[in-house]
């Protein structure tokens, strides 16, 4: 029995002997492709946009501003997809959160900050319900969240009677339209959320559990990981961030509109998947979601600017 001795823990990034560029590239393809796509798109639109209106600081700021609310939701969705679940309620949750905060402000004259906080808490509550139903009762997340999406959208339409409410809490207005120097605060909000999301996913125990449960639920269970609690926590995060996105977005627009997030659910999921996060769990990262968001934002903006 020849036991090999090892002197110090060492990590070889590339087990196996031959290390050639082509193989390394193939291994990294999932991570690199979205980045090159983004690069090509930026170059393409820079050349072909009408009067070169694409590659200007103002336009780039525009792109980021428009992607900001999506970015906040996408951070939550990244966790959900990493876990191998799906959340189709985020569009509805964001709508309901925005509408409820404005509605409280207008009809109950509640203090603005409280309205905004309650708006976000609506997201937390819906996320909690989603999580409990998925983890404890065992209803597939697809069905649970699809239903909750309908419920929340319905609630928003009911409260507004289908018309926009033209008043938003002051906090939301500041976050949505204010600037810090030349940079819109809404972009900073998105960056802070994404950074925290990235940090938690990559460097905390909770983040590791999300990856591992997503990689194999059965293995996680047999390793003594409480995958139910992880599921609930992730759904709460997703709901909370959708709520935050909803409230901040009312601030950006100056009104709470019951159909503003009509397409947001699938757009968000598209951004996350575009970045390279797997729909089946265990693979991906918040950082790659950032790239996905930019690809999506650049494409949407650029196509409006070409001849």
């Amino acid at each position, binding site marked *: *029995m*020849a*036991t*090999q001795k*090892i002197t110090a*823990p060492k*990590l*070889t*990034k590339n*087990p*196996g*002997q031959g290390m050639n560029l082509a193989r390394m590239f193939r291994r990294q393809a999932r991570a690199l492709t979205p980045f090159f796509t983004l690069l090509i798109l930026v170059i393409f639109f820079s050349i072909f946009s009408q009067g070169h209106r694409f590659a200007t600081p103002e336009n780039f700021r525009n792109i980021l501003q428009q992607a900001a609310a999506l970015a906040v939701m996408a951070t939550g969705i990244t966790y959900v997809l990493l876990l191998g679940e799906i959340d189709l309620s985020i569009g509805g949750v964001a709508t309901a959160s925005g509408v409820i905060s404005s509605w409280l402000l207008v009809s109950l004259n509640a203090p603005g900050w409280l309205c905004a906080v309650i708006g976000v808490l609506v997201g937390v509550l819906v996320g909690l319900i989603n999580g409990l139903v998925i983890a404890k009762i065992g209803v597939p997340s697809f069905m649970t969240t699809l239903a909750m999406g309908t419920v929340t959208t319905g609630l928003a339409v009911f409260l507004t009677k289908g018309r926009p409410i033209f008043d938003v809490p002051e906090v939301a207005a500041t976050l949505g339209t204010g600037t810090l120097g030349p940079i819109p605060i809404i972009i900073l909000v998105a960056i802070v959320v994404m950074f925290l999301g990235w940090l938690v996913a990559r*460097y*905390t*125990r909770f*983040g*590791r*559990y999300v990856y*591992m449960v997503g*990689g*194999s639920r*059965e*293995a*996680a*269970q*047999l*390793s*003594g*990981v*409480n995958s*139910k*609690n992880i599921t609930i926590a992730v759904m709460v995060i997703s709901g909370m961030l959708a709520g935050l996105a909803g409230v901040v977005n009312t601030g950006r627009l100056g009104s709470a509109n019951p159909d503003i997030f009509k397409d947001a659910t699938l757009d968000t999921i598209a951004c996350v998947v575009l970045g390279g996060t797997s729909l089946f769990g*265990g693979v991906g990262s918040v950082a790659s979601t950032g790239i996905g968001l930019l690809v999506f934002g650049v494409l949407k903006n650029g196509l409006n600017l070409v001849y």
Partner: protein
Amino acid sequence: MNEEMLLELRGVSKRFGATLALDQVDFDLRPGEVHGLVGENGAGYHSEHEGDIILRGKKVRFSSTRDALAQGIGMIYQELSVIKTLTVAENIFLGDPPVTKVGIVNWARMNREADEHLKQLGLHNVNVRTELSNYTVATRQMIEIASVIFSGADIIIMDEPTSALSHNEVERLFDFIRVLKSQKKGVVFISHFLDDVLGISDRITVLRNGKKVMTVNAKEVNKPYLTTAILGKQDSVELVRRVQPTKKTDTPVLEIRNLHRSRFLHGINFTVSKGEIVGVFGSMGAGKTQLAECLFGVVRADEGEIRLDNKLVKIRNTSHAKQMGIAYVPANRQATLFQGNEIYKNITISHLGNICPNFVKQTLEVVAATSQIKSLGVRPPDPSRVVASLSGGNQQKVVLAKWLTIPPKVLLLNDPTRGMDVGAKQEVMEIVEGLREKGVATIIFSTEPELLMAYADRVVILNRGHQMADLPNQDVTKDILLSYS
């Protein structure tokens, strides 16, 4: 050697990372022959190898298993690769069903041809229209073999085909293999069950450390001889019974009282003391896995008491069980590991909270994992290697390793040596013995009488969920075990 060979390997070497899995191996297979292969796991066809493979007199190279199948070599893996939700006929025609002129599946022809084919191979009791999940593992295995033959293979490589089969099923498989022999197919029979290898093979090749030790006629050798050949110069340790008085300390750690789970368990009663190894013996379906899963909180018992350190406990879920010091190594290794992830992540997952409380730190994880890798002898000892690339024995060590970062009070081992070669088996059991010295209360669930007779202080026998007996080691014989179960 004028007789025409179906398959010949000349000086084939296969490197797997830093280790040499095959080192200058010669091997040949005649038509109508069963050639047993014993000694080391990890045989198989890989594209990157040195040496010559000569198939029916012609030198060939395989780029993939699919390519090998196209050239008439079928591989039957340990874990079956049939699709349970399809019918028998669909599995036989998998990927290439006959179609009518308009391009839709010709069901009538498909069923007819599948039926004819199975009858030809002596499988008369199989209905080709039935979903495969209705058949036992043994039958599914034969159907998979039939399917491989149907796609044109005349060389069948079987990797541990008997590991999940009962005694009678093994006999049925052997009858089936004899039909294949009569049809001049060549069979390579890879197994660590030496009785089975001796029972069916014409010739046997022994590998040790990747090198060929010998090829012998099966009739000329017996089991002790083969065991010695596999283990090399070491004493032949065919898992002898330790005639050592139990070091039972009489401090009960785990007490199971009248445990019931409808349909599966009917009144289980036994106690495991500190430093004791209790064996639970039973055939497939006797309730071993159910019992283990009740104790680890995977499923809940309907009735009965579980006491841990004299305290009545209700095990809510697996994470609760873990916190109370219960560790479980399941039978299905594939499902227990995060196959796509590194060894170190697989080892640290169970006790991550103790290794790095809130923030994961790779360096801390690697240090923790490396010490386990060293003490359990995981090979290759590279914490960043992906678990899927390890052999069965080493994967099992990784599963053990994740529970040993913090020694458990109770260790549940379900079929811990399944599909392992003699050497790996012994290594794993040495680890278990080592834990006994540290006072761990261990339960080994197994279908192998020899294993329990060699290592368990007491053996509890299960039969269809009923506890048949609870015997001290010295009273246990193979006959008693088999007669009760």
